[in-house]
């Protein structure tokens, strides 16, 4: 269906389109895994164009993991191809009769029954679909067995390991009986002023490559964060018990470069090539090849499980990609199980007789497979944090999650602004909406509460703006790329001059919309807290030893945050918001 200019300019694309479409259908949705859930797969208006990091595709639906507003995004080449086929969004609802893949060849759209893909890994599926279509140039997004089995943190893979990991979008696709989406397109992308855009981009690319960290970034990508955070005393270790991992140098970017990296990989149009392709050349996991890990996976499948063998992390990463599960959720849940058995909160008989211990990669790979196949204890874990806490309420103090989403691999106890970021993130404890760790570690000593709320809100506004535009935030957050550029790009693309503050206001208004979606599912102040562990369990070791999030200060931050958003003390947007946000988007 055509959207119209008004819709396109107000909601821009990506997360914006998805949130609006979800909001409009909300009344019909009971179960995120029911056929009535509506999944929007949308690149943005900048996706596929000649500008840095223009590769993102957003997936928006009611989230199986949390039951509230959910989105996740993936890079690679899927979004640019989808736009070239002429689509700014795919909107999926209902359910295919048989397991099928969707084949979009420009204007021709076909649902191809493919029962033989059942149970196949996500990358194997990509291979099989490319073979069936006899083309290496089609782009394929696919789910693994976990998506078919409706694991609530199932991911969607595209381009051999670019994953939309969070929220369980793979399970939404699985619930619709869609195993994969293949796309090919040859159309020109709409740009009002192509020569202006080209000039802007050529300057941008020069600016980026002149950055002193540019080459280092190409070499390590996000893997550089392991060493940075461990040195700073912020590397989650053994289920967020410690913040310094004694074997960090065995799992960091330098180790990867020396012994495992065999190639670089980049998303469409991005000079930063943050992807690392790694191969295990020796030992038990010899022959394991994977794109990654990036930082989150190295931590959640590494230090946070006490794993000091980089090859084992690669194996875990490859398994998660192939099985189609989110490495963050899986890693945090497995870590929780290990700690639970280690400390006696659970007995080995609760976890299929496994005497779980830190750093045991065999047990970890077994658990990952059990999750994806819903076997034994894996069937409980496959339900995500909510299901785990329902079965074992005693795990509440050790399971690090907010709103049912397992927390990303950044601690919040040394940086209370990050606690606020997790508590108020619209999808749950994920760092995508605001990542203030670096800034607060550097400058936080002088910050007031006002400063903390300001930085969280600024992040929660500009980062979702990137998600509406379909671009990656990494040039901005990692290499200090000037955010004003995005307004210039958007103006050149639409032919309508826009200032950055106007775009930010739309993003800010959209935040109210995603809040309203979640409020309709019962979300309020009570849910806007980081995990109990952040308040109650002091960090062990490192320069922040003993630190916890101060409850009193957190309440003050939350009050201030709601005031700034214009929400009630209970975190509810005022009744008129629902009516007025459309006007604010103009």
């Amino acid at each position: 269906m055509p959207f119209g200019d008004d819709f396109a300019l107000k909601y821009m694309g990506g997360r914006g389109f998805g949130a609006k479409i979800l909001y409009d259908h909300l009344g019909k949705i009971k179960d995120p895994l029911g056929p009535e859930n509506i999944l929007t797969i949308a690149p943005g208006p900048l996706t596929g164009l000649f500008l840095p990091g223009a590769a993102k595709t957003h997936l928006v639906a009611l989230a199986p993991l949390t039951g509230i507003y959910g989105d996740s995004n993936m890079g690679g080449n899927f979004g640019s191809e989808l736009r070239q086929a002429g689509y700014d969004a795919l909107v999926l609802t209902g359910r295919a009769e048989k397991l099928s893949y969707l084949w979009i060849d420009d204007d021709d759209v076909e649902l191809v029954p493919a029962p033989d893909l059942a149970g196949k890994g996500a990358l194997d599926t990509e291979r099989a679909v490319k073979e069936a279509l006899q083309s290496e140039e089609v782009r394929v997004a696919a789910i693994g067995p976990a998506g078919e089995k409706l694991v609530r943190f199932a991911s969607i893979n595209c381009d051999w390991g670019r994953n939309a990991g969070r929220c369980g979008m793979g399970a939404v696709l699985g619930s619709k009986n869609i195993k994969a989406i293949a796309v090919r397109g040859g159309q020109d992308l709409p740009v009002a002023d192509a020569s202006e855009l080209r000039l802007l981009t050529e300057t941008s690319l020069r600016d980026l490559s002149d950055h002193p960290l540019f080459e280092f970034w190409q070499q390590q990508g996000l893997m550089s964060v392991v060493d940075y955070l461990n040195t700073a005393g912020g590397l989650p270790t053994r289920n967020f018990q410690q913040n310094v991992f004694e074997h960090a140098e065995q799992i960091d970017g330098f180790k990867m470069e020396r012994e495992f990296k065999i190639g670089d990989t980049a998303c469409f149009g991005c000079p930063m090539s943050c992807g690392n392709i790694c191969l295990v050349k020796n030992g038990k996991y010899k022959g394991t090849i994977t794109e990654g890990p990036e930082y989150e996976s190295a931590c959640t499948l590494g230090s946070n499980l006490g794993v000091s063998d980089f090859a084992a992390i690669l194996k875990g990463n490859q398994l998660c990609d192939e099985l189609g599960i989110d490495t963050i959720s899986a890693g945090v849940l497995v870590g929780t199980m290990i700690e639970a058995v280690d400390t006696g909160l659970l007995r080995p008989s609760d976890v299929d007789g496994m005497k779980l211990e830190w750093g045991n990669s065999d047990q970890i790979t077994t658990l990952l497979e059990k999750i994806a196949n819903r076997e034994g204890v894996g069937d409980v874990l496959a339900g995500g944090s909510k299901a785990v806490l329902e079965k074992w309420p005693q795990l509440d103090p050790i399971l690090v999650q907010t709103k049912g989403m397992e927390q990303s691999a950044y601690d919040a106890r040394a940086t209370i602004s990050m606690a606020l970021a997790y508590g108020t993130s619209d999808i749950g404890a994920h760092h995508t909406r605001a990542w203030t760790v670096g800034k607060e570690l550097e400058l936080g000593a002088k910050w007031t509460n006002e400063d903390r709320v300001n930085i969280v809100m600024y992040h929660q506004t500009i980062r979702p703006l990137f998600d509406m535009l379909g671009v990656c935030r990494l040039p901005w957050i990692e290499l200090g790329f000037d955010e004003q550029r995005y307004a210039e790009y958007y103006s050149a693309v639409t032919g309508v001059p826009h200032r950055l503050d106007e775009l930010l206001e739309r993003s800010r208004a959209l935040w109210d919309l995603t809040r309203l979606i979640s409020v309709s599912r019962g979300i309020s102040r009570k849910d806007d807290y980081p995990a109990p562990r952040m308040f109650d369990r002091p960090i062990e070791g490192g320069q922040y030893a003993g630190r916890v999030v101060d409850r009193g200060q957190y309440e003050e931050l939350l009050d201030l945050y709601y005031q700034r958003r214009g929400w009630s003390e209970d975190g509810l947007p005022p009744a008129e918001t629902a009516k007025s946000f459309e006007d604010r988007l103009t």
Partner: protein
Amino acid sequence: MPKRLSVVPERCSGCRLCESVCALQHFGVSNPKKSAIRVIALYPHPVIRMPVACRQCAQPKCRENCPTDAITLEDGVVRIDGEMCVSCRQCVISCPFGAIFVHDDIPVPFKCDLCGGHPQCAQQCPKGALQYVPEHELGEANRVAAVLRYAHMKEVEYVEKGERKKLRYAEIGREQSD
């Protein structure tokens, strides 16, 4: 001095900036399907990302197979004459590298013309995977790399004036595999 577009596949990240800028340069549009260079990415067996563009062959198969003599080789650049071309696609099929392209919107097949001596793809490549180099340098990089690969076989660590250093050396004549 004649120059060539040279590809170093092991440096390519597959970002396709080359495709984007090529289409903009030649057709003024954002459409990688209208670019005269394409990155093929294969995974996982083997892992390779490689840009494919015309090599401006000295004995072009495309020219040999062109039934209307629309293809010429001048100053080291193979060109398709749009007036003489009947768009039979013979060149597309006969190019051993698949470096001649077609698109519904464009009446005749198109290929790399080296942007009049300033290839934009090489200029924008963020990884140095595309290089525009004098012909006599072709192969030199490979020669050095071949020697280096051999010399990387062994590494010895030592301390000099309190500083930890590494020396690489080859055990001549003894290939070593992991």
